[in-house]
């Protein structure tokens, strides 16, 4: 079979125009989506930008709450100043307290060398023994 007869017999016309329409519509849709991709991303980024300040302000609030926990990079040589840094930690503990609890919280907060500092507080009588392994915080007067 040849010519138009062969095309008709094989359903050629339908295959040709259906195929052409499918490939064209497929690429038109892809082209449209691609053209919108930039806008969608722009919209998403602006949404994220608008969303971020709320998150940031929340974070700032949290930091403000935690501002009391100022952790020094190194232990100040002045024991009174060191005690100033430790006073917010002490507030978290019920008086009297065990030194292990103070040590644990100090380490958790990231204070440098808490073991040595606590030992200095003991020597300076800032940590006063109450008996039964418990200690009381004796706030230095000049803070």
């Amino acid at each position, binding site marked *: 079979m040849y010519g138009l007869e062969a095309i008709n017999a094989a359903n050629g016309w339908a295959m040709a125009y259906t195929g052409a329409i499918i490939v064209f519509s497929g690429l038109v849709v892809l*082209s449209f989506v691609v053209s919108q991709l930039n806008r969608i991303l722009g919209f998403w980024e602006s949404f994220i930008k608008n969303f971020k300040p709320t998150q940031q302000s929340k974070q700032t609030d949290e930091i403000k709450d935690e501002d009391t926990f100022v952790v020094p990079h190194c232990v100040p040589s002045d024991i009174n100043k060191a005690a100033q840094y430790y006073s917010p930690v002490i507030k978290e503990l019920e008086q009297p307290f065990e030194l292990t609890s103070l040590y644990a919280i100090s380490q958790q907060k990231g204070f440098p060398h808490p073991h040595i500092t606590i030992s200095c507080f003991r020597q300076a009588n800032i940590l006063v023994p109450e008996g039964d392994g418990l200690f009381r915080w004796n706030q230095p007067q000049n803070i």
Partner: protein
Amino acid sequence: MELLIQFLTNTGYYLADYRHIIMLLIGSVFVYLGTAKQYEPLLLVPIGFGILVGNVPFFKGFGLGIYEPNSVLHYLYFGVTTGLYPSIVFLGLGAMTDFSSLLARPKLMLLGAAAQMGIFFTLLSALALGFLPKEAASIAIIGGADGPTSIFLTAKLAPHLIGPIAIAAYSYMALIPVIQPPIMRLLTTRKERLIHMSELRQVSKKERVIFPVVGMILCCYLAPASIPLLGTFFFGNFMKECGVTERLVKTARTAIIDIATIFLGFTVGASTQGDVFLTGKSVGIFLLGAVAFSIATASGVIFAKIMNLFLKDKINPLLGAAGVSAVPGSAREVHLVGQREDPTNYLLMHAMACNSSGVIGSAICAGILWSFLV
């Protein structure tokens, strides 16, 4: 003496006939064009040498020929008949493709769609010439100017035509500098060829990362039969753009695609045994391939001119010729034709956008035709 005579009757010299000689000549021309003229050497050299190897006559039954079960060549050819090599080539192609220009100007994607019209016109022509529907579809896909896609579809629909169709597809890809420029010049005026394209916007990394995912979903959902090609193509591109799989991308775009190309070209060449290849059908396929390729080029150019009727920011109609998926040959040719008119006109990046959409378009067409005819 009898043993010697028996041996001599089994040699290629004794068994050769005129068809082998013709094929050896064709193979030599391919090797010559690939090496001396450097026309698509990465394709023509393996194919050409494969033709030479495939046309060494041998005593049938020794398990030597590509069509004989259990022969080494037959096992290598397995990657062609199953569509494995084209799929791997597409993976590497995806890992090499930069879609930035396409993302910057998505309307150029329509030229990639328009250039596929050559496929459907050729489908009708092949049917009219008496080819069976599956053969006609395999021949028509030559219009996509995509070797791996042509081989993939032919392996699925008309495996007996892989040789001639692959040779036709790759020959026309290599002959882009000869075929396309006259059509481009014939269908455009000098004024149109001088159109400068506006500068492309900067494309963000996020767009480039999202595109292969979106592209794969949209195209493969539309034509699931194109998954073996477009699935790997977009996967390769995603690996390239995501930026965290550098080692995999490097392998995909070097070793993997090279290995697949070598075996694909060599075995396709070897499949062109004179007795199988030199038939009336092969001549018809070559003629229809030329028609398909020319119409694909012309329809891209004409569609670009039609688009210009509606666009404020005119596009250079030469870009339509790059809608065929011969990457990067047709884009390079569009650029050169544009530069011949005006050396300051740089069309390459814009043409690459059409080219890469042509790859997607022809793979979708292959999927569509396969699903029509299964």
